[in-house]
């Protein structure tokens, strides 16, 4: 018998898509029965109360959660988000119901052994409810009381060799696509780089010293599966500088509609789009028009290719990314709060991704950008907003990067150039008396 009636939520148990309501009810029941004899450290019926408070929100059309308040683990300024219910008498099991962010491993690969260790800790010391995963990438442990925060942290660090992620005005937990671990398009090892950056900048991740949040996201190629270009202050997108590699035999297999060579790697299989037409589907859709057939040979004018990935995605067995690989760095992406959304802007067209020297080229850029932002950024000003306020020229200046046409979609349409004194011959100091000798008042 459920603790609270949930007639509205019950209607979300039907339908084919996995029901979060059924999942919560399952969890509530497992806790109630407690066949594993867990010595619960927070109320056993907290998931019942979580269902109850959510039902009340469905009835009211308003949330029943309050602001966080300052809770956390000793010495860290992030990783824990305080959360309190605004109807504690009705739902005492979720009166204090804080979130803990656990730093996910690169590529989100797991073993069942690891996940069972997490679930065991969380069954005993928390609600047992999680998000796999939060939007930034962490494992989200959803709901525990203040005294359990240190206990969970202790168990994670001592028994699992596992740390918390970021929150607040910190470096947020960096996230990546699965990269070369299982993708032929990846231009660098995203798993290795995200792991390196996360460890290299542990202090920035745990202790708030920034004007606001800062996100790193790593995409192995311009397909952008983790959306780094739209949602990270610094986005590392894999790319290459040399030629797309062509297997002409495989190109002709695609043209001949060989069954082993489905267009777009089979992504359109469930609809009849007619036989594959290389002219229409690849050459005609190339945004730069840099491809053509010469008899049975496909030709690519690589100097005019922008590496958009369309041809490679469409004929993955015939076309491969080049061999001179690295990444582009884009900066300043963010969601609309406050002055509107920003897309990442290209700062470094190509940079080597070299684990041999601890990614020195990349960390140089990162540290220069942070020095500037920490010095000049206002409270709650994202990097993108600072770039808007002080100008793109400023970020080029602080990073020592030379302006190049790749930095703009098109040059400025106004002539209001902020010339600096040292850029103008003779400087700005002039003698008005001398001037007036030739120009009467």
């Amino acid at each position, binding site marked *: 018998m459920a603790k609270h009636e949930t007639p*509205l*939520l019950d209607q979300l148990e039907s339908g084919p*898509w*996995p*029901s*979060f309501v*059924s999942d919560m009810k*399952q*969890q509530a029941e497992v806790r109630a029965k407690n066949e594993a004899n867990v010595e619960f450290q927070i109320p056993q019926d907290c998931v019942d109360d979580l269902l109850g408070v*959510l039902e009340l929100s*469905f*009835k009211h*059309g*308003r*949330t*029943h959660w309050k602001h966080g308040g300052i809770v956390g683990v*000793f010495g860290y300024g992030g990783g824990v988000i305080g959360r309190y219910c605004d109807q504690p008498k009705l739902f005492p099991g979720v009166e204090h119901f804080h*979130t803990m962010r656990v730093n996910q*491993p*690169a*590529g*989100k*690969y797991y073993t*069942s052994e690891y*996940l069972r260790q997490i*679930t065991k800790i969380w069954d*005993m010391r928390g609600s*047992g409810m999680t998000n*796999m995963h939060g*939007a930034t990438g962490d494992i989200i442990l959803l*709901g525990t009381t203040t005294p359990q925060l*240190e*206990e969970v*942290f202790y168990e994670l660090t*001592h028994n699992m*060799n*596992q740390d918390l992620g970021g929150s607040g005005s910190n470096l947020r937990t960096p996230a990546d696509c699965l990269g070369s*671990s*299982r993708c032929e398009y990846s231009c660098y090892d995203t798993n290795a780089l995200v*792991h390196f950056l996360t460890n290299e900048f*542990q202090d920035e991740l745990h202790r708030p010293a920034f004007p606001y949040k800062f996100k790193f996201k790593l995409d192995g190629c311009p*397909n*952008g599966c983790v959306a780094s*270009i*739209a949602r990270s202050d610094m986005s590392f997108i894999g790319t290459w500088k040399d030629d797309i590699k062509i297997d002409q035999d495989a190109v002709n297999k695609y043209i001949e509609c060989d069954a082993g060579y489905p267009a777009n*790697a089979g992504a*359109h299989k*469930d609809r009849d789009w007619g036989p594959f037409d290389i002219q229409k589907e690849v050459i005609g*859709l190339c*945004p730069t028009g840099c491809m053509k057939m010469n008899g049975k040979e496909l030709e690519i004018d690589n100097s005019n290719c*922008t590496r958009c*990935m369309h041809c490679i995605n469409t004929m993955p*067995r015939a076309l*491969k990314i080049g061999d001179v690989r690295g990444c582009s760095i884009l900066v300043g992406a963010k*969601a*609309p*709060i406050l002055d*509107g*959304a920003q*897309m990442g802007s290209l700062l470094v067209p190509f940079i080597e991704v070299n684990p041999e020297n601890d990614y020195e080229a990349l960390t140089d850029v990162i540290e220069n950008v942070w020095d500037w932002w920490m010095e000049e950024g206002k409270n709650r000003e994202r990097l993108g907003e600072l770039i808007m306020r002080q100008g793109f020229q400023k970020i080029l200046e602080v990073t020592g990067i030379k302006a190049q046409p790749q930095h703009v979609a098109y040059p400025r349409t106004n002539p209001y150039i902020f010339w600096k004194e040292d850029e103008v011959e003779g400087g700005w100091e002039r003698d008005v008396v001398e001037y007036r000798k030739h120009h009467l008042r």
Partner: protein
Amino acid sequence: MAFISSGYNPAKPMENRISDIGPRHFEEFYPEVIKKNKGKWTHHEILESGVLVHVSETGDEVYTVRCGGARLMGTAHINEICDIADKHCDGHLRFTTRNNIEFMVDSKDKVEPLMNDLKSRKFPGGSQKFPIGGTGAGITNIVHTQGWLHCHTPATDASGTVKATMDELFDDFQSMKLPAHLRVSMACCLNMCGAVHCSDIAILGYHRKPPMLDHEYLDKLCEIPLAVSSCPTAAIKPAKVTLANGEEVKSVAVKNERCMFCGNCYTMCPSMPLADTEGDGIVLMAGGKVSNRISDPKFSKVVVAFLPNDMPRWPSMTDAINKMVNAYSNGANKYERLGDWAERIGWEKFFEVCELDFTHHLIDDFRQQAYMSWRQSTNFKF
């Protein structure tokens, strides 16, 4: 409920403290076939919706079965995922950026037993636990935020709107019939923890009433200068207010007609709540993308200014989403993303074929960049 110590000593928090160790190393978690073939993959193929094969230059293959799931999951469900991984995948699995679960096996004969097992698991309410799909030219899982489940600023629920939408779009999750892939994302307020602003279709919670002012507590709970400076439109100013009991307190005043309902003041000051049953609801956006393929990444555009919160299944929202998906499916060319299609036919045609009303709310009037979106030519369609 006796307190059980982990070993942590509150009197000496630094004793044996371990910190700044980061996440576990990813190589501990790679399946054997991944470890062996990392960086050697030559190509892949989607064999059917939700099933991929990646082929290595060594001749090895890894078969991946992708399943949808609610990102909100209890440990009982996670343990069930572990059982499946133990039974079929030597105890390995991974999650995708879009909250899908991927089970990987190293030979083709292991795929069918895995799929049959996944298909057989259902919740008592009837929904599938592990629906297979989410690949190629279809709809994959929705990335989303917390909503009413666990957040203090939402204007709608996240898990509920996502469940309602995925039930409606389920056929496109399990098939690959669309012109290109179509990404749906959900954020329950303008903070957009989910960063939905570059999605083919975005569901966004939005407030429409300015904050209420809890004068009695405002100065006790908030830093007034922070509340004032939090407002992007400078609608908030410090004020002195006389309470009903005659006491004069420091507080703020809000110029309501300037409010853009972003809720940033409430984030800084709990005495300025915005949430309201009638005021809050859904904004729909469309036509964004993050991939660089064929065309540049682009922002989603607001296509429905407001829909009411209509629990538990938000029918007017799913109806509008269905109309967009159907019109796109019927009208777009192969490989064409929703936003590219809308730009090709023109947004005026988009509203016509999607049967969506265009209202003055959809014309940008926020800051200087608004001008860029007005039509500055005579090239339009009747």
